[in-house]
């Protein structure tokens, strides 16, 4: 018996060991190292000697550019989270009910998920929302006599948000539609039959009292993923807004700010690490808070 247990232990580590070692080395070690670095003045070095305590943290939180990047994230998620949620749920409800060409519609809405943010941003910046007159949106608006707009460089009103939000909306709506479709398929037809017997009218009433509550677990997951992904937005911001002159002073989300602080000219790795730690904490808090708020752990109790 004794031999068997240690045999199992050995085999456990044969299977799990390589993965666990890599995860430790490439996720946990960098995290701890950056916590360490965040307490030092680390310009262009990864083995600093100049301990500054919480100096990087206070400098970071006092830096207007950092706090305004958090504001940018807040505005961005205020747009993108409800918009993606509504569009992907709407698409799922329609695709679920349609009888002919269902697979075709699902493919078309899902296909943008195969596109990279780099390519999508390129299409949006250079063609769709190109600020010059041959941009498609300007062309279409021109047919109705609307003046051309320089979408990405207009800050009053901030038209650049329209460009940024629609890229992500187009790219990710189909992905979340697939999640909702899976959720819809799990709803028992008996519930609908029971609702019909009880006299619920098809359409809004059934959606409100059966479909929507039954999608609760999927909704929680979708909102959680949307917020976390919005927090990590980098690719489309960088590719839409930066040019040969650098990045404009507006619409800098946290990761863009971090990218330029830690890896830009100064290579201020201490500050960058402090920023990464603050962002990781914010994400953890947001995740836990959302999970509590929506009662993610409650499923077992039901």
């Amino acid at each position, binding site marked *: 018996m004794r031999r068997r247990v240690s045999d199992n232990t050995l085999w456990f580590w044969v299977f799990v060991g390589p993965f666990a070692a890599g995860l430790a080395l490439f996720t946990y070690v960098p995290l701890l190292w950056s916590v360490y670095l965040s307490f030092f003045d680390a310009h262009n070095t*990864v083995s600093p000697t100049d301990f500054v305590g919480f100096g990087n943290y206070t400098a970071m939180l006092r830096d207007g550019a950092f706090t305004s990047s958090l504001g940018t994230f807040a505005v961005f998620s205020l747009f993108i989270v409800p918009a993606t949620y509504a569009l992907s749920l709407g698409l799922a409800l329609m695709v679920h009910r349609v009888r002919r060409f269902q697979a075709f519609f699902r493919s078309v809405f899902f296909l943008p998920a195969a596109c*990279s943010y780099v390519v999508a941003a390129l299409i949006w910046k250079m063609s769709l929302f190109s600020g010059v007159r041959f941009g498609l949106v300007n062309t279409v608006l021109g047919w109705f006599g609307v003046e051309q707009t320089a979408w990405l460089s207009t800050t009053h009103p901030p038209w650049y948000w329209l460009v940024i939000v629609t890229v992500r909306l187009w790219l990710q709506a189909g992905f979340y539609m697939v999640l909702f479709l899976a959720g819809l398929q799990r709803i028992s037809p008996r519930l609908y039959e029971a609702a019909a017997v009880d006299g619920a009218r098809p359409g809004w009433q059934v959606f409100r009292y059966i479909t929507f509550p039954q999608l609760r677990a999927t909704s929680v997951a979708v909102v*959680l993923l949307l917020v976390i992904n919005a927090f990590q937005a980098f690719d489309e911001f960088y590719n839409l807004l930066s040019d040969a002159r650098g990045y404009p002073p507006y619409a800098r989300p946290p990761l863009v700010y971090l990218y330029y602080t830690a890896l830009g000219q100064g290579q201020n790795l201490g500050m960058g690490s402090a920023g990464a730690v603050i962002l990781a904490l914010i994400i953890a808090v947001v995740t836990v808070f959302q999970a509590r708020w929506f009662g993610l752990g409650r499923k077992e109790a039901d």
Partner: protein
Amino acid sequence: MGVFRAGGAPRGGRPEDPLVRVGRALRWVILVALALLFLVPFYLLVRNGLSAERDITSPSWTFFPSSVHWSNVRELFDDPAVPMARSLLNSALIAVATTVGTLLLASLAGYGLARIPYRFANQVFYAVIGTLMVPAAVTFVPSFVLVSSLGWVSSLRGLIVPTLFSGFACFVFRQFFTGFPRELEDAARVDGLGYWRTYWRIVVPNARPVFAAVGTIVFIGAWNSFLWPLVIGQDRDAWTVQVALSTFTTAQVVNLHELFVAAAVSIVPLVLVFLLLQRYIVAGVERSGIDD
């Protein structure tokens, strides 16, 4: 369901409520309109990629180029200013290596966590789950620090190895193997196979759909990944296709037809993977939902 869907009227019997029919027609119109709208960006990609420069910048919109310029493709690969072939090769190497490596490492770990009794298995599992809470994008600064002190900047190693340990993939495999029917493995054990041979001979052949699901998602993610290759692939020779595209999108002088044909070429492998393996991707996306 049938009773209900027809809005009170039995299906196939009496004529349907006109309201229901209007609703269905409206749904069709909205779906078709949205589908067309969703395809516009792909249309622009192909239209501009096969146009002459003057057709793209022409003040009057032409829906199709006046003549189709397949020569744009050759021009792209002949242009010494754009390392297109090299960056495509880099992307392909990275995507394939990341997919194979991730599948191997994460499936072994997932199986071990699901099936091999070990006192601290739960603690190890929590350590894996914990990394899902810390998004990779937030750790790019510390990871860059680590990779640069290993001297791996601008190398394929640096681009591939740190991305091989996916907590998400391990989680999906672990959940799948936990629900895998034990009878098959028990039979193998009776025949005297140990964990290792049971895994390769019995478990893997019966788990192909999960491998396909996780593999396609990892492949797409690796091909499209941008921030990490931007940070690590600093030399031109280490550019992935995304970094190359980005460099030219954000450059001062832009050659539009060449840029668009490059972008179109860059998504061809993915569109193929996507259309051929879509059902696995859908399965993978469904598995990645936390609600299972």
